[in-house]
């Protein structure tokens, strides 16, 4: 009898242990560290209260990092979702050609970010890059994509959008296909035009997908690291430095563990507030069937 | 011996008491049918016998062994589920074999058993198919085979035929009865269909809201209901039951102790108006609807006591709406205020129909 009582706990134990050791405890530890000053080697962790938080908030570089992170995430998610939605409406058809296109636009999603970063480094190369060669055909020459602070973040956003579009499009297509045909037929009988049909029927029916993709898209973008680390190293002049890269630099290059942890805690807080807010506010407007 | 006894069985789900103090004995080798309206606790009772659900209190005995705390797999019970519950990823053969493997029956012996059983249920050609490739009736047979192959002492079936169409259902009913005779083991069969219960069972247990209403053989159940619930449950259409006060004008004083009076639709006669004899209740009525079913006709009539159903086996009446309903006194059932049956010792001589001077306009029975 007691074995039967204990059994479910035994079965979830390994998974919960992993989560505790590598998620929950680290989060707690990170919060702990954010109140301390520590350089990773010294035996003492000096308690400093909120001073890490206050100095971070006054640190112009960190503020720029935050701005970069939000700019990057917001734009990436917005562009990916809008373009994918259009592509989905276009590509949601049967036929070998459409299947091929769907496969092609999806392919970047399974390629390592390492390869993608290198590929795009070359594509965006000022002198030998494919992109400038192509733009050159239209008379636009020598855009310093990755080396000019004005365009560097945008360049990374382009890469992220290029990589993400295929996945999002396919999810939207799946969403479109799950909308029952008969509501379109009903709309057609009511003589509804296409634009109206899209905004009044399709979009509301897609809202759960839209909602879900926004959430996972933002959470995914907040942790961008690979493209930055390989393509720009956060530069030029911090124009592409975002939060995970910032934590990495502070922790592993400057050994400011407390400082780095605080940055992590701040983003965690932001994600937390944002998620709750998003679920509370928008969650109600989402149309679930 | 595999007589099954339930002693003071109570089952609660949270605060809901679903089975209320059930005491019953299911005889060894019987074909016992548990019947009752939806949600009355049939499945729950069955699942407690199988060990899939533990009773809140009380004991369950199989033979002279108390199995209240025995695991389902160890009770020597096989069960056929309403939706068959075949393992969808296994072939028919593997489905039948699964329990045997778990019981560690040697391979050679398993082969023999499977061949034997699939022969009985006529599945031999389908052994290597997956359940999805079979028809409803074939799936049903796989479920039966899977249960039978374990040579259980008790065979439990929970509404096994409800997913089949009417024709197949009839056929499977006969096959199940034959199977029962062939195997000679105890069958417990759940249904909410009283026709199925009447035609299959040699013992019927009627449940309502978790309380046992009556246990009897089918004919007794039909002729001698214990209470209003049984009377209304068995038979189509159901027994007509009206408040005695509504019937007063038609009844002799003799019957005025009862709270309810009832009679079966097939026991009523439709007669012409001047015809009146003693020992019959005569009710002047109007025909509302006529339902012709071929061999029989069902009328819905209205009179001063209310609405009633009358079943007759002669040609339908088409020429008039006004008739008289006649019911012999000895075909009346009486119930007290608690809806329990009052069994009358009233003896009377109903005059046989043949001696009645004026023939019935349209006669039943």
């Amino acid at each position: 009898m007691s074995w039967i009582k204990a059994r479910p706990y035994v079965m979830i134990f390994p998974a919960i242990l992993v989560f505790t050791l590598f998620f929950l405890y680290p989060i707690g530890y990170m919060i702990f560290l954010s109140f301390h000053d520590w350089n990773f080697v010294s035996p003492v962790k000096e308690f400093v209260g909120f001073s890490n938080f206050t100095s971070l908030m006054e640190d112009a570089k960190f503020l720029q990092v935050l701005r970069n992170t939000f700019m990057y995430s917001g734009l990436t998610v917005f562009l990916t979702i809008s373009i994918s939605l259009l592509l989905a409406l276009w590509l949601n058809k049967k036929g070998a050609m459409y299947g091929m296109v769907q496969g092609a636009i999806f392919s970047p999603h399974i390629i390592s970010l390492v390869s993608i970063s290198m590929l795009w480094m070359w594509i965006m190369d000022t002198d030998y890059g494919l992109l400038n060669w192509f733009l050159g055909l239209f008379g636009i020459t020598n855009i310093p994509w990755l080396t000019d602070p004005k365009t560097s973040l945008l360049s990374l956003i382009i890469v992220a959008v290029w990589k993400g579009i295929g996945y999002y499009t396919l999810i939207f297509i799946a969403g479109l296909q799950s909308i029952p045909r008969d509501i379109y037929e009903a709309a057609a009988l009511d003589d509804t035009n296409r634009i109206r049909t899209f905004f009044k029927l399709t979009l509301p029916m897609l809202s759960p997908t839209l909602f879900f993709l926004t959430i996972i898209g933002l959470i995914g973008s907040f942790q961008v690291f690979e493209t930055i680390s390989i393509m720009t190293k956060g530069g030029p002049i911090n124009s592409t430095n975002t939060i995970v890269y910032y934590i990495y630099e502070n922790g592993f290059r400057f050994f400011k563990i407390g400082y780095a942890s605080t940055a992590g805690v701040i983003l965690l807080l932001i994600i937390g507030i944002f998620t709750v807010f998003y679920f509370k506010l928008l969650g109600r407007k989402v149309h679930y069937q | 011996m595999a007589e099954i006894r339930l002693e003071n069985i109570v089952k609660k789900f949270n605060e809901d008491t679903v089975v209320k103090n059930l005491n019953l004995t299911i005889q060894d080798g019987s074909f016992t049918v548990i019947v009752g309206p939806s949600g009355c606790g049939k499945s729950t009772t069955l699942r407690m016998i199988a060990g899939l659900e533990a009773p809140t209190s009380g004991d369950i005995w199989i033979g002279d062994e108390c199995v209240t705390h025995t695991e389902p797999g160890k009770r020597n019970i096989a069960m056929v589920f309403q939706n068959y519950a075949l393992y969808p990823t296994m072939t028919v053969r593997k489905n039948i074999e699964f329990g045997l493997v778990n019981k560690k029956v040697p391979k050679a012996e398993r082969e023999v058993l499977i061949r034997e059983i699939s022969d009985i249920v006529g599945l031999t050609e389908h052994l290597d198919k997956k359940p999805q490739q079979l028809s409803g009736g074939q799936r049903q047979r796989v479920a039966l085979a899977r249960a039978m192959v374990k040579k259980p002492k008790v065979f439990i079936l929970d509404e096994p035929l409800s997913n089949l169409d009417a024709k197949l259902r009839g056929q499977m009913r006969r096959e199940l009865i034959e199977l029962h005779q062939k195997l000679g083991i105890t069958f417990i069969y759940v249904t909410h269909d009283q026709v199925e219960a009447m035609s299959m069972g040699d013992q019927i247990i009627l449940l309502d809201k978790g309380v046992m209403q009556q246990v009897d053989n089918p004919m007794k159940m039909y002729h001698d209901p214990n209470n209003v619930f049984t009377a209304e449950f068995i038979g189509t259409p159901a027994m007509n039951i009206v408040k005695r006060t509504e019937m007063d004008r038609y009844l002799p004083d003799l019957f005025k102790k009862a709270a309810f009076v009832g009679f079966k639709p097939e026991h009523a006669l439709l007669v012409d108006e001047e015809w009146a004899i003693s020992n019959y209740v005569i009710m002047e009525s109007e025909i509302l609807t006529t339902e012709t079913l071929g061999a029989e006709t069902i009328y819905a009539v209205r009179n001063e006591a209310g609405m009633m159903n009358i079943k007759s086996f002669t040609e339908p009446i088409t020429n008039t709406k006004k008739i008289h309903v006649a019911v012999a006194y000895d075909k009346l059932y009486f119930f007290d205020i608690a809806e329990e049956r009052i069994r009358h010792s009233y003896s009377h001589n109903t005059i046989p129909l043949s001696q009645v001077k004026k023939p019935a306009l349209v006669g039943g029975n």
Partner: protein
Amino acid sequence: MKKNPFWKVINGIGLLLLICIFALPFVWMISTSFKTLGETMTFPPNWIPNQLLWENFSKAWNSGPFLKYFLNSTIVSVGILILQFATIIPAAYAFARYRFKGNNFFFGVTMVTLMIPTQLIFLPVYLQMSAFGLLDSLWGLILPFASSAFGIFLLRQSFKQVPEELLEAARLDQASEWKIIIKIMVPMAKPVLITFAMFSFIAHWNDYFWPLVMTTTEASRTLPLGIAKLREVDGGVAWNILMAGNLILVIPILIIFFFGQRQIIRAFVYTGVK
């Protein structure tokens, strides 16, 4: 609707353009990996190399302990997969099928870990690993991913859909819970498990971040790190060698993708839709 031939042509051109935007970079990658260094600099780019320089691959492979990287990548990706299966199957079964105190709580904990970006908490995990003495070892790359909240979530959904009657039938057939999981639940959830396996394998095969953070010596580095290091070879970037290396990294995934395209796409989409 649009039978107009003009629109048909426009539509076709649009589709071709789409394919170009997404496929040309890979075509370039393949073509570059066969070129001489000089040819990589030609402008506009040569789509078909003048000759096939296979030695770029051996150069890339021999520029570091690539066999080691390759083995490490394989061990890590497969090891993670095995551990994940071992932890998520029982957990998902318990969450889906048992009522016990704390079911909702522990499942909630699992879902919270799903919402937290893993790369955000690498620093404390790193310190944790260092405390365990697992830094710079393959264990350090495997253990943090030994379970998957996402996998549990998917599998629980799928286990929940199995009708209760089926389990009861199995219990009456004297099957132990363990046997029910292995013989009934897992086969029924096979599509989801394959989906998850591909998802997980691709993610960890491609992973650059964790090995970068958790390893310090060649002995425990994986392929993506090795490839990234190719860039730092003596001064200027040898694009041909670099792309040859990338092709080595991508090929296993491309092979899987080639054979299981439908399944993989369905897998990723499925994980997104649920």
